[in-house]
């Protein structure tokens, strides 16, 4: 039996609005099924269940904002007794605020005499933004979304908060996502001692191999160079697992699964880094399909919660912008970010000859608490080796 709670869909998420249930009581769910849409600062996110079973009871109400960790539903797993369930449910019920438990339920222990004319306004359970009238007026004038603002303002929203939010809005591509990124990056910069490594990698063998591979394929099955790099990183990480994982509770945690977060720019600005879950279990074609799917769903706003919470490492590629080298900032609690610049034609020494080769600058930013430069260097050299022998990527 499990209790489905308001998931934390980001380090900065304190609460979320249960936008819509995708299941009803009695439905069978299996691990990974979408159980609900949760509205967060990052938009509406499809939330999955992590344990299968039967939806025994739904307690979370649509449209209500709940703090992370609030029980929303009870899911019964196979072979559980009725009693256990009852016990669990009653426990959840008792955890709810008093006004909820009082409402509607007839007390059996004592019968209270009704009071004449004692009708009182029913307390609204729906969430309401606490903003002053002036703040509301100004928000309307300045186009500031109070619902969103309420997620960052403690107490009530006053005119000042609205004005400040509006001022920030004038910065290009500002939105809540930007704020979330800002928070995460500030945290990263403040907490993580980064080290940076860079190495040029000769991409000619990989690209030529890819070219001949794609020539034999239909257009839709062709592999993009970016996929080659992702696959190479995943393979390198398998050999240097210290860079794949987290810094948690003061210590490094290596992740078994490799879920590389792929930095994807949003059309309206902003950046997300959804993960290709279990990339280590995929071959090159599967990786390609997964990447394609991820980009599509990212742009249409249909990401799964696991994809934006379970990254174990980040890969960023700014080559399309002509950038030569990327010095990334690690997304906490991850411990590494791998960057690729533009693939350039460069004079390249091979043996004792000089040839023109396609070269990319691969970089690594590592969390010095978790690993040191040697580990990073080892990783880059593995990456290089893999790319020099591209047939291994398949």
């Amino acid at each position, binding site marked *: 039996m499990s209790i489905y709670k308001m998931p934390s869909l980001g380090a900065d998420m304190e609460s979320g609005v249960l936008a819509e249930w995708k299941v009803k009581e009695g439905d069978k769910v299996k691990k990974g099924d979408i159980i609900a849409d949760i509205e967060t600062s990052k938009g509406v996110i499809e939330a999955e269940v992590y344990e299968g079973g039967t939806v025994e009871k739904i307690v979370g109400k649509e449209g209500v904002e709940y703090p992370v960790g609030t029980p929303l539903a009870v899911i019964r797993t196979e072979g559980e007794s009725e009693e256990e369930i009852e016990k669990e449910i009653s426990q959840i019920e008792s955890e709810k605020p008093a006004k909820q438990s009082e409402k509607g339920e007839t007390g059996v222990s004592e019968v209270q005499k009704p009071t004449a004319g004692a009708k009182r306004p029913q307390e609204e359970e729906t969430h309401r933004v606490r903003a002053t*009238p002036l703040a509301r*007026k100004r928000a309307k004038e300045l186009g500031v979304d109070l619902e969103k603002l309420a997620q960052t303002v403690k107490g009530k929203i006053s005119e*000042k908060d609205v004005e400040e939010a509006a001022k920030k809005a004038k910065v290009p591509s500002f939105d809540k996502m930007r704020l979330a990124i800002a928070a995460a990056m500030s945290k990263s910069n403040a907490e993580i001692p980064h080290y940076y490594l860079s190495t040029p990698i000769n991409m000619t063998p990989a690209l030529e191999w890819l070219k001949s591979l794609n020539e034999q394929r239909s257009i839709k099955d062709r592999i993009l160079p970016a996929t080659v790099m992702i696959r190479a990183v995943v393979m390198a990480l398998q050999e240097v697992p210290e860079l794949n994982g987290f810094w948690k509770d003061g210590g490094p945690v290596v992740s078994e699964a490799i879920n590389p977060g792929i930095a994807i720019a949003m059309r309206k600005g902003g950046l997300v880094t959804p993960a290709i879950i279990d990339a280590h279990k995929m071959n090159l074609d599967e990786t390609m399909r997964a990447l394609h799917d991820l980009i599509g769903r990212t742009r249409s706003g249909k990401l799964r919660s696991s994809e934006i919470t379970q990254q174990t490492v980040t890969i960023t590629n700014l080559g399309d912008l002509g950038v030569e080298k990327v010095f990334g900032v690690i997304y906490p609690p991850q411990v590494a970010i791998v960057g690729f610049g533009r693939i350039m034609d460069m004079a390249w020494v091979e043996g004792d000859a000089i040839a023109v080769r396609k070269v990319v600058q691969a970089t690594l930013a590592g969390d010095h608490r978790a690993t040191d430069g040697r580990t990073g260097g080892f990783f880059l050299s593995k990456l290089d080796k893999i790319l020099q022998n591209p047939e291994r990527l398949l």
Partner: protein
Amino acid sequence: MSEAKETTYRKAVGKAIDDAMKKDERVFLAGEDVGRYGGSYAVSMGLLEKYGPERIVDTPLCESGFTGMGIGAAMNGMRPIIEIMTVNFSLLALDQIVNNASHLLHMSGGQFNVPLVIRMATGAGKQLAAQHSHSLEGWYAHIPGIKVLTPATVQDAHDMVHLALADPDPVIIFENALLYNNKGTLDTSLEPLPIGKANVEREGKDMTIFAYGINLFKALEAAETLAKEGIEAEVVDLRSLRPLDDETIVASVKKTHRVLIVDEGWRSGSISAEIMARINEQAFFELDAPMYRVCTEEVPIPYPRHLEQAAIPTPDKIVAAAKKMMEES
């Protein structure tokens, strides 16, 4: 040309009455001990000798009788100033003030206006205990048909007598008894600020303190303290509780977006409640914090000084309320 002079609130009221009587034979002053005694607050000292007992009329203790007399005289062409010794005793004249003075013009279909001036002392603070410490001006402001003035400054103490006498309808002037000794500048060359106009006594940007009568000075004192802590309070002297100057009130709310009202009356159903309601009606979307008020505690005013002070508005209470409001927003 300015004719500014330093004088007291008491003398300013007395001078206004004196000048009015000199100018207009229809004006007379009537009330308990206004003549031979010199006025219980010495406002009319010396006027009996000047104008004689027919114009400075000592009345017996019959608030309803002499107030009604004033109404009748006003209906029949005179300009009486009725002095009710204190607001506490005015309760004995309520029938005349409410049922007659304030209703007559409307009830008679516009035929009988009542150009009557009623003056009375108001307020607590002199350890006079429950029956001599009322502040019922907000209560009177409830009544349509009369006008309710609360002069705070020496200038207004003088000017409002003239404004009231020039008004064709009944006007009640509430003089806070603690103000009579107050010194201030009186410039008789100035055109009086009309009835129904509030006055911004101190400019500020962070909040507005609305006050009237003696509380104007408590509010100004509080504003000084607040300024030292970086809070710039605007202080508005309401001057007139009926009609209220909605225009000035709303304008100040639009400027500061925060409201604190100091009310010498009891909280429930008070003038501060009325002002809040009007701001709510007319300037709701200008508010950046809940409105606050400092009123008199809802008890009969006790005799001992510490309890009396605990019951009425003080600068400390105003400062505390102002800070609380600023912290909230």
